[in-house]
């Protein structure tokens, strides 16, 4: 099964790409994913200050600054992985450094 792992936090920690690359927990996570060979897509997103939300209402396009959802946590990146089952996806999610201060939402891909 395919799962999207949405890597979320409130952006207070906000490590740079270099810091993240140097983080041994992140390295272990990347290596583990590599070993499993199931990664299909994986990206890190820029922070929500760079987000733009687009809505269309009554035929009019409304563009606004910021993320769509007014929540405490924001999606900071995501991977799509092929896993045997939810338990494997949970295992991968638990290895991500953001799981220790933010959270990882595991969503099955609608196929």
């Amino acid at each position, binding site marked *: *099964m395919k799962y999207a792992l949405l890597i979320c936090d409130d952006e207070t920690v906000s490590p740079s790409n270099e810091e993240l690359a140097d983080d041994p927990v992140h390295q272990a996570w990347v290596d583990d994913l590599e070993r499993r060979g199931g990664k299909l897509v994986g990206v890190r997103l820029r922070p929500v200050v760079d987000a733009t939300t687009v809505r269309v209402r009554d035929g009019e396009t409304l563009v606004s600054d910021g993320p769509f959802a007014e929540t405490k946590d924001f999606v900071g990146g995501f991977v799509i992985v092929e896993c045997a*089952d*939810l338990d494997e996806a949970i295992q991968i999610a638990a290895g991500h450094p953001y799981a220790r201060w933010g959270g990882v939402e595991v969503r*099955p891909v609608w196929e």
Partner: protein
Amino acid sequence: MTGDHVRAAVDTAYRDEWGQVVATLIAMTGDWDLAEDCAQDAFAAALTTWPRDGVPRRPGAWLTTAARNRALDRLRRDAAGAAKLRELAVPARGEPAEEDIPDERLRLIFTCCHPALPFPARVALTLRTLAGLSTAEIARALLTGEPAMAQRLVRAKRKIQEAGIPYRVPPAEALPQRLAAVLAVLYLIFNQGYGEEDPRRALTAEAIRLARVLAGLMPAEPEPRGLLALMLLHEARRATRTEDGVLVTLEHQDRSRWDNALIAEGVATLDQALARRSAGPYQLQAAIAACHATASVTASTDWPQIASLYGELARLAPSPVVDLNRAVAVAMADGIPAGLALVDDLAASGQLTGYHLLPATRADLLRRDGRAAEAKAAYEEALELAPTEADRRYLTGRLNEL
């Protein structure tokens, strides 16, 4: 063979075999609804076949085979099902030997209690698929409407399918946490039935049955046995817990009415668990219950031992309620002032603000210490916070005695 005799045999088989028939069918087809339907059909077939042919020597094997053949027929009927059958490599129709049917209930119970399911759904699913309670029975027992309960079961089964929750016993590294989740579900089922609202004891009986199955399937794990022992020891005292709707405290329960057979089984079960030398929260709670259950009169209660068990429990599973119970045991073992000091510390911490047993416990200790005026004020405080009628009646009685 009389109809009553067969009816009783089918009822017994339903209680003992339902979970295993469903578990086997899910393992075979991966389809929870199909598994339940075919299990139901198998029991219906038993009702018509057994009066004619006699009750089979191994009712479980008969029922599993009947359900399995029914599933094969239904899958063969449509093209998608036939493809699935090839994929599953299910052997041809026939009578599997008894030893060919593995007990799949452990896989079923861990899947029902998977942490990705909402807690109430875990409880409902366990009662439906393992214990075989109907949706209406579960709704009644858990004080929910039947349509809401049906919806909860449908959603849970759908999530298992769509989110890919695996049908298996978790690997060793995940086992302690996952087992704790299973035990929590069984204990909730027991506690739900322990209240007054379930006079037929249906839920406590189901919980004990399930704990027995779990303990039997995981002989190397001490905590399932600890939970089973705890349930048995509580159940033994159940009849004496209330009198005419008024709560009766342990101290005043009629010990001659406790069920000695259940106490003996509970103590023996606890001893088996403790022999593995790996104490856990359920074993400790059972050990405390055993101290009470084996004291022939209140005065012979081993309070120092109970205080030390609560201390160990507080270390393994910290909770202010455990600290409160420990304070009572310390008061009984080392004198009221020592216990009262612990209660006052707890009150000062604010962790139990609004919990009626905090002032009720304080009141009780003050009363024992002869401080009637202070005890009265504390009972009045507890009375305002008490959640049930039985609690209020008990506290009012105490207040009037002062």
